[in-house]
C-alpha cells in the first residue's frame, strides 16, 4: 500500500463530511462527536420517518425501551436506541433472518436439550411478536402498564427477570426471547450501517473499529501503536464517498490528520 498523501486525506475528509449514505444517516439527530466531526448530518436535511416494515408502533416502543437498557446511552456515547437498533431489528425480522431463510424449518419440534440449539417452531419474527406480547402482558399484570411506560428501574427489573428466566412467558421461553433480543441488539449496534443500525457508526467508534477491510501491510508490525482512522462503511465505498485503492480498499482518513486538516 502506498501511504495516502496529505492531499488525499483532506479530500477524503471533506467528502466524508459532506455526503451521507442514503437512508442511513439522514434521519439522525445525534450531534457529531468532537473526534468524528466528519459525520454530521447535512444542514437542512429533512428528517424522514423510518419505514418500519415488520414491527407495529407498540412493538417499536417496546424495543426502543428494551434496547436502551441493553446498550445504554452514556458518557461513552450513543446507545442501541440512538444507533437505530430497533430499526435494524425491524429490517432483520422483515427479511431472511426473521423467516429463517437458509435454516432447517421442518418438524417435528420437540424442545430438545440446550446442546441441540434452536428448536422452536417459531421463526425469529414470530418469537419477537410472541415475546413482546407476553412481556407486555406480564407488565400489565404486575405494574398495570405496558413495558415501555414503566419507570427505567422497573424496566430493568423486567429485563433481568427475562434474562434469568424468573419471568415465565406463555408462548416462548423467556430466556430464549431475551437472548435473541440481546444478540440482535449487539448485531445492530456493530453491523455495517447499511442494515439500518450502527447509525453514525456509533458502535464502531465506541470500540475503535475502522469498518470494512483495509490494507494494513505497512502498519501491522507497528506494535502497541493504536491505529485510529475514521471508520468506513459499505455505503461510503459504493457511494464513492470514501477514497479507495485499486482493490476497493478504503484509503483511511486518520483521525489526527483529519483534526489537523480541519
Amino acid at each position, binding site marked *: 500500500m502506498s501511504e495516502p498523501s496529505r492531499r488525499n486525506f483532506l479530500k477524503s475528509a471533506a467528502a466524508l463530511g459532506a455526503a451521507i449514505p442514503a437512508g442511513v444517516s439522514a434521519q439522525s439527530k445525534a450531534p457529531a462527536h468532537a473526534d468524528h466531526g466528519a459525520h454530521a448530518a447535512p444542514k437542512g436535511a429533512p428528517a424522514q420517518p423510518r419505514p418500519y416494515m415488520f414491527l407495529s408502533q407498540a412493538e417499536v416502543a417496546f424495543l426502543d425501551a428494551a434496547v436502551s437498557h441493553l446498550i445504554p446511552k452514556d458518557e461513552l456515547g450513543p446507545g442501541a436506541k440512538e444507533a437505530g437498533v430497533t430499526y435494524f431489528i425491524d429490517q432483520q425480522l422483515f427479511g431472511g433472518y426473521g423467516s429463517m*431463510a*437458509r435454516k*432447517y424449518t421442518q418438524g417435528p419440534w*420437540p424442545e430438545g436439550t440446550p446442546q*441441540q440449539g434452536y*428448536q422452536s417452531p417459531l421463526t425469529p419474527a414470530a418469537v419477537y411478536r410472541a415475546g413482546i406480547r407476553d412481556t407486555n402482558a406480564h407488565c400489565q399484570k404486575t405494574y398495570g402498564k405496558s413495558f415501555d411506560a414503566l419507570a427505567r428501574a422497573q424496566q430493568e427489573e423486567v*429485563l433481568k427477570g427475562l434474562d434469568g428466566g424468573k419471568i415465565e412467558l406463555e408462548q416462548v421461553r423467556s430466556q430464549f426471547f431475551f437472548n435473541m433480543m440481546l444478540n440482535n441488539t449487539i448485531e445492530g449496534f456493530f453491523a455495517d450501517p447499511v442494515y439500518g443500525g450502527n447509525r453514525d457508526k456509533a458502535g464502531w467508534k465506541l470500540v*475503535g473499529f475502522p469498518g470494512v477491510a483495509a490494507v494494513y501491510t505497512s*502498519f501491522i508490525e507497528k506494535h502497541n501503536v493504536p491505529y485510529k482512522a475514521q471508520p468506513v462503511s459499505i455505503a461510503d465505498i459504493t457511494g464513492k464517498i470514501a477514497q479507495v485503492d485499486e482493490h476497493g*480498499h478504503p484509503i483511511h482518513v486518520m483521525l489526527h490528520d483529519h483534526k489537523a486538516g480541519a
Partner: protein
Amino acid sequence: MATKLKPVDAVTIGVGLTGTILAKELADTGLKVVGIERGRWRDTEHDFAMPGVHDELKYVRHKELMQDLSKETITFRNNANELALPMRQLGSFLPGEGVGGAAVHWGGLTWRFLPWDFETKSRTLARYGAKQVSEECTMQDWGVSYDELEPHFNRFEYLYGVSGKAGNLNGKIIPGGNPFEGARSAEYPNPPLKVGYSSLLFKQAAEKLGYKTFPVPTSANSRAYKNEYGATIQSCVYCGYCQFFACEMGAKASPQTAVLPALMKNPNYELRTLCNVTRINLDSEKKRAVSVTYVDSRGREFEQPADLILLTSYVLNNARLMLLSGIGKPYDPTTGTGVVGRNYAYQTPSSVTLFFEDKNFNSFMGAGGMGLAIDEFNGDNFDHSGLGFIGGGFMQAGSNGARPIEFHPVPQGTPRWGSEWKKAVSKYYNRAFSITIQGACQSYRGNWLDLDPTYRDAYGLPLLRMTFDRRENETKMSEWLTNKAAEIAKAIGPARMNVNPRRGKYTIVPYQSTHNTGGTVMGADPNTSVVNKYLQSWDVHNLFVVGAGNFPQNGGYNPTGTVGALTYQALEAIKTRYLKKPGALV
C-alpha cells in the same frame, strides 16, 4: 425418471479443495472429468469483491458462504439415549456450499499432522499401555505413515503457496521452525507472515519458559506466488477479514486462486453447478459403482455414468452418501461392527484471553493463520504418564482479524449487558487477545454417524444423524493444556485473564471449529475402516472417498494440510496404478 447421460471417465462429487485437485490432475492425463457441485459458481473477481464481501453480519452471522440448511442439515444428540434433533441453524461447525467448498471461507492454517498422529494406537500402547485410554476409545493407526505422506504434504504446500518456516529439514532441526514436526524434504514455498504484537508478547513469555516458538503455517500467502499450474496467489494485505470470508485479494489459497483458473481451461473438464448428488449407483453385484444420480436446479434428475467415482464433498456428506447408497456396512455401536459412520470425532478447542490496561493490539488487523505457536504440548511431544489422557494440541497467539459483533471480549464477571458491559467492551476491544489451543479429540465407540429415522432433506432423503460427546480424555487434556497456556499468559502479565478450558457436554450452538473428522476412516483392516490407505473403498474398487472423514481420530492441528496430503496420496495411486489396472489396490 432420471435421464441417462453419456458416460465419462471420472466424476467428482463436490468441487472443493480435494475435488478440484483430483479433477485437474486426472483431466490432465486425458480423462474426461465431470465435477458435480450442489452450490453455485463463485470466483474472486465477481463474487468476492470489495466492499460487500467483507460484511460481518452477512458472512459471519448469516453464514452466506456456508451450507443452506433449508435443503439439508444433520440431526444431533449427545448420546444414544437422546432423541436426535435437527441442527436448524449453523453454529459449532460451518460446512461450505458452492464451488470451492469450505476452502473459500477457511482460516488458512495448513499443518502437517505429527508422525505420532498416524500411529496413535500403536505408539500409545507401546509407551503407556492399554490403560492410558478408556476401554471405549476406538483410536487406531491410519494405515499410512508420515514418511509415506511427506512428498504429498510437500506437493500440497507448494500448490497452495503455504507461508511458514521449516523446523525439521531432512532431519536437521532448524532454529525458528517447529522442532517437533516430522522431517520435511523442503522449506515452505513462502516465508512466514509478519508478526503481530500479541504474537511477540507470546513469543517472549514462551521462550522465557523454555518453549520454542515458530510461525503458524498458513495459506494466506506472504508474497505473490505462482504455483505449478501457473496460478498466481496474491500477497496478503492483513485486512482482518479472513476466516468466515472469501478473500478479495486472491491472497488466501483456495480452489479459486490455486486450481480453478487452470482447471476451467482444460477441455476435458466439465463443471455442473447447482446439481445435488443423491446417490451413487452400484452394479448388480455391488462391487462396482456405475453412475451417480443427481438433481439439477430445474428439478431434473440425471444419471451420470462414470468409470471412476471420487467422493469429494465435506466429511459429513461423504459419510451420508455412502449410507444412502448402501456402500460399506453401516457401523453399529451396540455390536461394534460395521464401518461407515464409525469413529466420528471433532476438536477440543480452548483458550485463555488476556486483558490489558496499557497495550493496544489493533484487533481488527490480521490474517488467517497469522501467529506464533508452540508445539511442546501436542501429540506425544510430552510425557503423558500419570496424566490420564493422550493427545494434545498446538497453542498460539495470533492476529487473525476480529470484528466487533463476534469479538468483544470482556473479563469474567462483567455483566452481559448494560453500561458496565458497554464500558468493558469499549475498553478491551483493542486491548485483549487470546492464546488459543487446538486440542485433539479421540474416537469412541458411542460417537458415530448414521441416518436419522425421522428427519429428511429437501429431496425426501434421511438426514445424517450425529451422536457425539467428548469424553474424560478430552476434558482432562483440555484442562491440562489450558493451564499450560495460562502459565504463559501469566508470564506475559495481563491485568486480567479468562481461562476457558473446554468443559461439559458438547453443544452444537457456539462456533468451535469446522474440523469434523471420521465416518469414512482409512486403515489397514476392512473391519475397522471404510477405505484402504489409498482412500479406495474396500467394497467398491472404483470409488475413492477423500477428506477429513478419513481421519481415524483427530489430532491437535487444523486438518486441511493433512487433507491435502491425503488427496495426493489417493491421486498418485489412481494415476500410477489404478488407471493401468483397475481393481483393489490392497
